[in-house]
């Protein structure tokens, strides 16, 4: 049970201090989640903290590889406009 940060991360630092398990760390080319430490915030918060502050749609995946913030869910920009 762990999340993953992928290459669309912009290194904004927002998630790092929020992680209750200290699983998120600064790395090149982008922040990473230590899968051994990540608890998906179970027991600490109702909602996973990294995914609740991350401003980049699609930058954090759950263990099934599903985007926690799918396209359009944060900015309200219709996905077809994003692609254009």
């Amino acid at each position: 049970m762990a999340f993953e940060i992928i290459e669309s991360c912009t290194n904004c630092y927002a998630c790092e201090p929020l992680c209750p398990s200290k699983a998120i760390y600064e790395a090149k080319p982008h922040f990473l989640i230590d899968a051994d430490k990540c608890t998906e915030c179970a027991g600490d918060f109702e909602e996973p903290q990294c995914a609740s502050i991350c401003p980049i749609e699609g930058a954090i995946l759950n263990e099934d590889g599903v985007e926690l913030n799918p396209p359009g869910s944060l900015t309200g920009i219709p996905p077809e406009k994003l692609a254009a």
Partner: protein
Amino acid sequence: MELPVLNNTASEAAKGGCSERSCGSTDDQMNHLPDSIRDKVKNHPCYSEEAHHYFARMHVAVAPACNIQCNYCNRKYDCSNESRPGVVSEVLNPVQAVKKVMAVAATIPQMTVLGIAGPGDALANPQRTFDTFRMLNEQAPDIKLCVSTNGLALPENVEEMCQYNIDHVTITINCVDPDVGAKIYPWIFWNNKRIKGREGAAILIAQQQKGLEMLVAKGVLVKVNSVMIPGVNDKHLEEVSRIVKAKGAFLHNVMPLISEEEHGTFYGLTGQRGPTNEELQELQDSCAGDMNMMRHCRQCRADAVGLLGEDRGAEFTLDKIEEMDIDYAEAMKMRAEVHAAINEELESKHKAKETKLVSIEGLKKEVTRPVLMAVATKGGGVINEHFGHAGEFLIYEASSNGVRFIGHRKTTPYCEGGDTCGDGESALDVTIRELSGCEVVLCSKVGYEPWGPLEAAGIQPNGEHAMEAIEDAVLAVYEEMRAAGKLEAKADTAQKAA
């Protein structure tokens, strides 16, 4: 310290026309303020229109995280060729930031102010922001510190901010109504949750207002920035201006929405337009009945360096500052001398102006129509830029009440220099369009080629006042127009009757 009691009832009388407080020369708006406040802003380029001709500022991009999303912001953006808020090329850690500030301060002694303005929110990164301030307090005590914030995390940070002698804070307040806010802010992060829509906007608004009140109670000078979004909050901003003034904000800066499609913001991609120059000026004028309005904002980058309107950031990249060896004690002496010389120059200008005002008072003149003039300047408060080299023009209004600063208009320099103007023709068209409404353009020199098209567009080029003080030159040209009978032709009958 007591902030000025700002009258909250003048709005009805002043609406529409040219209110008493916003007329006259541009620094008049400062003249009614107590000395303690004038002292605080006189060398701050973002708080004093006059200071921005002489003093420089810089931002350090140490705060990339944000706790809200705005529809005019794209968090993925990073480009060194773009000049607008939220954009940076290099995020610094606090130690690097301090090194950069000291390198800039030693190289550009006119730099008086360091601000932290993102590219996220300064207070969503309190540790990085405050570490930077703490070190600067110790190592470079002659630099003024400023913070720019969306206000969400402001109340919990006011106490600590005051410990670092931060005496200027800018809060971006785009609305006081959650229904309006829901159209601007898709979400906020609050109490460990992402809160969307109206509910999030309501929390943000409450925090902004509470933060504003707390800062004013502590004697901190507060400037309020608002982004003017036509059809969303344009009408609403007059109310915002009244409310923030009543709560003790000192200056209101209404900025035009920037929403190019290629920026990839919600507004950019959904066709939300920004205001025209005329719409912006009209709103600023109607807010000015209640409030000191800032009109010289250049909406600079979160890592800008230099005078407003210029960006010397490329001289201070990480690898370049790494090679600089700064003796700050020595730099501080040199800086103090430069600042003293500028202040002396400003003092003597003020004295000269007072004398002149007295002489003008004596001859009450008939009411003549106002005229907009564009000015090309590189700084120093004088006309010292060639028409073809100007990347922006300052706009002044001359009227029988005097000269007042209206704003600035950006353009592409007609001629980037030398004989190789390339597609200068189309750049000139852009400049002429940007200068719409102006009847004169004052610059140190105007070439033969642009002269004809400018005249044809009703804009008289004028290179006769090179190196003269801007306001003196504008007034002189206005007087020439009066003598030539050019101020009566289009005279507004209503104004004449008044």
